[in-house]
């Protein structure tokens, strides 16, 4: 009986005799493995990054975002609307709905949030990310983030503002073109007076640009800034009377606390007044008043537009310790959509996982297909080797090799091709995945303007799944063994008498 080690050696020697054919089979196996290993090594890492950076912090843990029954901007067929299919009909939020929710146990506040834009805050002018929007929220929600109550109750006419932590944690060093952590952090911002410029149509203008080569921000030159302003103004001129449209209102604000993310919160009442001022200004400035009416914005074949007193979005704040999910469920029972931070996170993860699964399935199917073809190639190579090796098989049998020895030699050859191809493919797959990871991370770092978000980007999205790799090698060994089974059996059954006959 031939020794295992000698069997492997003979197999390797025979394989070396047919270098080209064996290399072709090995490379084919490797190609399939490269696709699978690359996908597997990267997708896990991509998911990790996604989970870390999923944007859910805009919703506070004790807050529920409520939306009208269905997305009001979805276009539906007119027949559906006219057919009175109530379950599909859009249901807007109204003051009576908020009133009902406010009466539930565990609910602290329920109201519509007011978004005020365009607006600019003078203290944020030196930052790459502009603040062009204020959010009016119910007072209890604002109070959750107020760090210093004395500032709030102080005798001042300034509007209390809660600013996002992301806006204040880092500051821009114009001299070095770098964003640096503010050592004093939030402390220096608390109580700071800010100027709020309502109706600043240029609030979203970029003040800085990122230099990819130098890897730093640079301030826009005066000419560049003017070009941007001119471009925006050209668009405004067609729609508005710019003399009115460029009118702004200056208000005084004061930082009273910090909230997650980049938003800036203010009391609901103040926001409503600010919003009203901007609406009035816009209506006065509009050259074509019809453009501003809801009937025109939502034609008869689309969804019904919200009437005065109807809202598409609301915010519900639950009391500390209350069951937020129970409240969200009750809201859903009323026929509205409810989103909590946990639900938003779950939905985003689910949506992301679903996309990943599709990518993974496609990659694995493609890799599997190549691998299947490679197995066919292993079968063909081993078959040809058997045909070419008949004299050797005859000699080996005459010298004392058993049928089992012969079978093992050829099975070993098939398996060696599969395993070598898999190992080769794995190494190349890892190398490719590492390279792609490097590209992706470099690209992500270059294209992320939010410095805090950039900190969440890891050094690599490459991950090594050893269990999967072991399974892959085992699978490849088994599949290539199966591919070599028939040729090996044929080799074992070669008649030595016939094989030894010299043609």
């Amino acid at each position: 009986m031939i020794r295992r080690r000698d069997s492997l050696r003979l197999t390797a020697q025979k394989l070396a005799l047919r270098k080209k054919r064996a290399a072709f089979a090995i490379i084919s196996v490797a190609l399939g493995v490269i696709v699978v290993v690359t996908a597997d090594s990267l997708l896990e890492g991509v998911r990790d990054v996604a989970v870390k950076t999923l944007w859910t912090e805009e919703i506070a843990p004790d807050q529920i975002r409520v939306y009208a029954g269905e997305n009001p901007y979805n276009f539906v067929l007119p027949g559906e609307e006219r057919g009175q299919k109530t379950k599909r009909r859009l249901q807007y939020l109204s003051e009576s709905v908020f009133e009902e929710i406010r009466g539930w146990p565990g609910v602290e506040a329920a109201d519509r949030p007011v978004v005020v834009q365009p607006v600019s805050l003078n203290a944020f002018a030196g930052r790459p990310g502009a603040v062009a929007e204020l959010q009016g929220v119910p007072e209890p929600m604002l109070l959750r983030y107020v760090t210093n109550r004395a500032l709030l109750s102080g005798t001042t006419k300034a509007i209390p503002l809660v600013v996002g932590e992301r806006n204040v944690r880092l500051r821009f060093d114009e001299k070095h073109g770098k964003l640096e952590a503010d050592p004093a952090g939030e402390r220096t911002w608390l109580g700071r007076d800010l100027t709020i410029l309502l109706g600043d149509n240029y609030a979203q203008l970029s003040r800085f640009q990122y230099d990819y080569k130098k890897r730093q921000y640079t301030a826009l030159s005066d000419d560049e800034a003017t070009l941007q302003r001119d471009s925006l103004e050209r668009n405004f001129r067609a729609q508005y009377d710019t003399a009115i449209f460029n009118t702004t209102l200056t208000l005084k604000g004061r930082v009273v606390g910090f909230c997650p993310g980049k938003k800036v919160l203010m009391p609901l009442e103040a926001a409503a007044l600010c919003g009203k001022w901007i609406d009035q200004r816009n209506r006065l400035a509009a050259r074509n008043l019809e453009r501003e009416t809801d009937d025109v914005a939502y034609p008869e074949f689309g969804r019904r537009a919200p009437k005065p007193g109807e809202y598409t979005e609301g915010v519900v704040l639950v009391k500390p310790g209350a069951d937020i999910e129970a409240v969200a469920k009750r809201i859903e029972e009323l026929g509205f959509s409810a989103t909590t931070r946990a639900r938003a996170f779950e939905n985003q993860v689910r949506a992301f996982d679903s996309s990943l699964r599709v990518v993974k399935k496609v990659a694995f199917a493609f890799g599997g297909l190549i691998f299947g073809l490679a197995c066919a190639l292993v079968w063909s190579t081993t078959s040809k080797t058997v045909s070419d090796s008949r004299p050797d098989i005859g000699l080996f049998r005459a010298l004392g090799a058993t049928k089992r020895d012969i079978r093992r030699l050829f099975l070993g050859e098939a398996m060696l091709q599969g395993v070598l191809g898999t190992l080769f493919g794995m190494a190349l797959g890892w190398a490719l995945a590492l390279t792609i990871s490097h590209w992706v991370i470099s690209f992500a770092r270059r294209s992320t303007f939010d410095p805090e978000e950039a900190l969440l980007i890891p050094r690599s999205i490459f991950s090594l799944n050893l269990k999967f790799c072991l399974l892959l090698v085992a699978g490849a060994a088994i599949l290539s063994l199966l591919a070599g089974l028939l040729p090996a059996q044929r080799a074992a059954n070669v008649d030595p008498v016939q094989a030894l006959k010299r043609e």
Partner: protein
Amino acid sequence: MIHLENISVDYPLKSGRVPALRHVNLDIAAGDFVAIMGPSGSGKTTLIQLIAGLLTPTAGEVIVSGENLRQLNDRKISGFRNRTIGFVFQFFNLPNYYDALDNVALPLVFAGVDEPTRRTRARELLTEFGLAERMRHTPDQLSGGEAQRVAIARALVNNPKIILADEPTGNLDRDTGTHVMELLQRVNRQRKVTVLLVTHDEKAAAFAHRVLRIEKGELA
């Protein structure tokens, strides 16, 4: 050592069965040197293949070294071939991808002998046969006589009791053939190995203790 009893071998062909051997009875004692002569197609090689267990007779019994070959399964008969039989072929049958040393050691691979032992034994034999300088040469780098000496060394490496030589001089010139026959004779005398030689060549057959003639599958 070798006992063939009423052996018949038929080859199945499309046109019917063709008899290769008919009622052959043969006894060869241990240490004997027997030559079998006969024209082409007379059944000489079939006889050798029967004794090596590569072929199963249609009828009769083959008993070699006390083993009834018909009763052995593949594993046992392969082991028997490996331990008991040494083959010398007309065309040497030395794989070109092995050098002389590895070719000689090949039967030991199938015997499960470890590599250092294999190499030592192969080296000893090649040195004994005057091929010490040729160990690392591949068969296509050897002359016909050298190649056949390597083949004889390979046949002897596992210390077999029997050497079956099928036309060992058929592919060699006269002088080289004589040297090969002298080597086989020496092996027979010194190692007490039974040699069964199949040949057309009267000169080669003259080295044997006795010569048997076979014609149309029957021993004369």
